[in-house]
């Protein structure tokens, strides 16, 4: 097990180095840089001014030199300066991380706490009205784009309560603070909950047909014990995998949700930084996301072993 963990950690490091190169090169392959964009607004490009600004930002250096400067800085905890705000990238990124992390955590919590029990209910009552209703709900969750759902929530909120639950950095009450995150988390987590529900349902249906479930029933185990202790425990592995993947994919949904609910998190900031070709912000943020994804995958793998004693790594 220890050897496996070390191997995985080394692999994670290699993956991150590979990702850093890809991010760096891809960013520079995209047409235009921040200088083009700054001058774009002015409506013309003065070659001398442009060259001066490129020199000031270090964009005139060979690409490998720029890469080495970035990695060298990262190793020393120096993420560089945002080209737009001219503030340290770390100072720009750090305050936004907890906002997005809270939102993502709540969305995942919503996804799991709604998706898993409803998936179990749907499977246990297969073919019933409840099952059909839940399947319709889950299908709509997969079909409704989160931005549309978000806007719908905002419109309904304004129309019904005359209030709009968009981000407020200084909420007056804890309920307002909760609503600021909970409402968008529901909007973004709805799709994820629907997927979790469907995976739980299909996984449960497969398990419920196993011989040992019949045996458990024959031994007189209660329905709740059969469903949750025997069936769900064995059906949960694919669900964990999906939640792990969803955690990685969540960033895509968060970009839209943060925009609609005007939440100043990392995801929306990334899009804006990309629009400005603010390389230090984009490359550091994408690296951060890559780290989160790689670590989430690693954690899921470790969870497998913890949940299913039959799984052993590296022996």
């Amino acid at each position, binding site marked *: 097990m220890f050897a496996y963990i070390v191997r995985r950690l080394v692999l994670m490091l290699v993956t991150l180095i590979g990702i850093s190169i890809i991010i760096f090169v891809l960013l520079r392959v995209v047409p235009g840089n921040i200088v083009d964009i700054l001058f*774009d607004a002015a*409506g013309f490009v003065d070659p001398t001014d442009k060259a001066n600004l490129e020199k000031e930002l270090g964009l005139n250096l060979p690409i490998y030199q720029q890469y080495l400067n970035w990695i060298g800085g990262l190793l020393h905890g120096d993420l560089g300066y*945002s080209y737009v*705000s*001219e503030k340290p990238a770390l100072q720009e990124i750090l305050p936004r991380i907890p906002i997005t992390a809270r939102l993502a955590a709540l969305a995942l919590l919503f996804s799991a706490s709604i998706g898993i029990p409803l998936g179990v209910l749907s499977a246990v009552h297969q073919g019933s009205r409840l099952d059909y209703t839940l399947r319709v709900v889950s299908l709509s969750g997969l079909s409704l784009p989160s931005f549309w759902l978000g*806007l719908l929530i*905002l419109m309904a*909120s304004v129309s019904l309560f005359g*209030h709009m639950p968009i981000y407020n950095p200084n909420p007056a009450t804890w309920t307002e603070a909760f609503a600021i995150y909970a409402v968008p988390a529901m909007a973004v987590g709805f799709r994820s909950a629907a997927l979790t529900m469907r995976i739980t349902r299909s996984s449960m249906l497969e398990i419920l047909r196993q011989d040992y479930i019949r045996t458990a029933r024959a031994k007189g185990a209660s329905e709740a014990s059969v469903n949750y202790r025997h069936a769900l425990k064995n059906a949960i592995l694919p669900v964990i995998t999906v939640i792990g993947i969803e955690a990685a994919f969540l960033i895509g949904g968060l970009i839209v949700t943060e925009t*609609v609910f005007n939440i100043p998190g990392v995801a929306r900031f990334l899009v804006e930084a990309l629009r400005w070709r603010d390389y230090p912000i984009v490359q550091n943020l994408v690296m951060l996301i890559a780290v989160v994804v790689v670590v989430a995958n690693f954690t899921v793998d470790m969870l497998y072993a913890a949940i299913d004693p039959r799984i052993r790594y590296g022996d």
Partner: protein
Amino acid sequence: MGSVRALAVAALLLLPAYDVASAGEPKQGGILRVYHRDSPGSASIHEGATFSINVPFMPVFNNLVMYKQDVPQNSVESIVPDLAESWGWSDDGKKLTFKLKQGVKWHDGKPFTSADVKCTFDMLMGKSQQKFRQNPRKSWYDQVNEVTVNGDFEASFSLKRPQPALLSLLASGYTPVYPCHVSPADMRTKPVGTGPFKFVEFKANESIKLTKNPDYFKKGLPHLDGIEFTIITNRSTAILGFVSGKFDMTFPTEVSIPLLKEVKSQAPNAVCVVEPVNVSTNIIVNSSAPPFDNIDIRRALALVLDRKAFVSILYEGQADIGGTMLPAPGGLWAMPKEMLESIPGYGPDVNANREEARKLMQKAGYGPDKRLAVKVATRNIPIYRDPAVILIDQMKSIYVDGDLDVVDTAQWFPKVARKDYSLGLNLTGNAVDDPDQSFYENYSCGSERNYTNYCNREIEKLFDEQSMEKDVAKRKKLVWEIDKKLQEDVARPIILHARQGSCWQPYVKGITIMVNSSYNGYRYEDVWMDK
């Protein structure tokens, strides 16, 4: 200096656009909450070329002179003193001297002097050690030889030749005075001004906060305690925020005509106005390369335009048709209607125009069996894309098959500047409703923004002639003649001049939306809230 006049007197002659008595005595206090359409690239007005910077940062600064903030139409008559106490032209019209107000302090406590004026304009003219990262309006000062000072409270602009319009350029929201002692880099992130509001913070993609300057040199102003701009890039969210009362005001001139209906239906008490923004939608034609090096094809292109269709589809009828200069009544320099309609392509009979266009195309060798294929380049944002699609549709009637070529924003102006296009759809904004700004920037030989490479030495002479003309009536006639000629030469066919909406809650008082520029009316020193 023979014709010195105290403009304070002239200012008294101006009629305010809103009735103070009916609005009541201004109340002090309150934070004006406005949503902002996007995150500006910096806080430095001089380095920007979008009113996304002017709106939140104009309240931080003062100009030497400014357009009176409660007069909707910017004109020479509406220019009032700001940091200047008075100004005067020399008899030969080549020297403009400003007497400056005394006792004015920068927000950091340092005194404002004529040295700051010299610093600012030397930097704008590229004559100082300190440089702006970018200097988009350097050409505004092409006729200025130098700025000199006489003591701490007098500054003079010496010109190469008379240019009465310089005063209008100095009154623009784009022309604040910067402090000598603050670097351009600091001005981009922590601007220091003399204005009614002090800069508090600018969080990119989040908010911009300003607070009242208690030491403002205009006594009793500002009325507000502060202004907060919340940056909301999603238009639907922003409008919902306004409707729900989260904001006191929309971002100025940013509510489209369809959205305006939504606002009025959901917030019937909101005060909404629709005004011209002095931004024209136009066609840029690369006349230095085939097929548009052929004047017949260019003329056919000008004749095919059904401008009313553009206005009706894109703006539900709320846009204006005109030449280069903004149409009346908002615009000061527009050609009379009869003159405009005498220009080919502007006549009311679209079918007749198109028939003539088809003949020109046939003369150039094109017809139903030999159609001309062109790419129509435009920026990949709806206000550019949508008219381009209509243009492509209209061109079909004269044997031209257009193919939409959408270009990423970062690449649009570099592409246009290197003439890497055949036909393009462009938007041109004018910060000041003055022919000097428009003609020299967009049509002068060699100008960086003359994307079409149009160059006519005869017209050039007329540009200078109108620029030096002191008599406004005479200047107007010259301007009309030039504008007509530009349209006949198909230099940059103008399709329409857009109008946009602005809304505010009924308790917000003292807001005036300018009708011939969307860059100059955001000082907010006399705005107050009746609640």
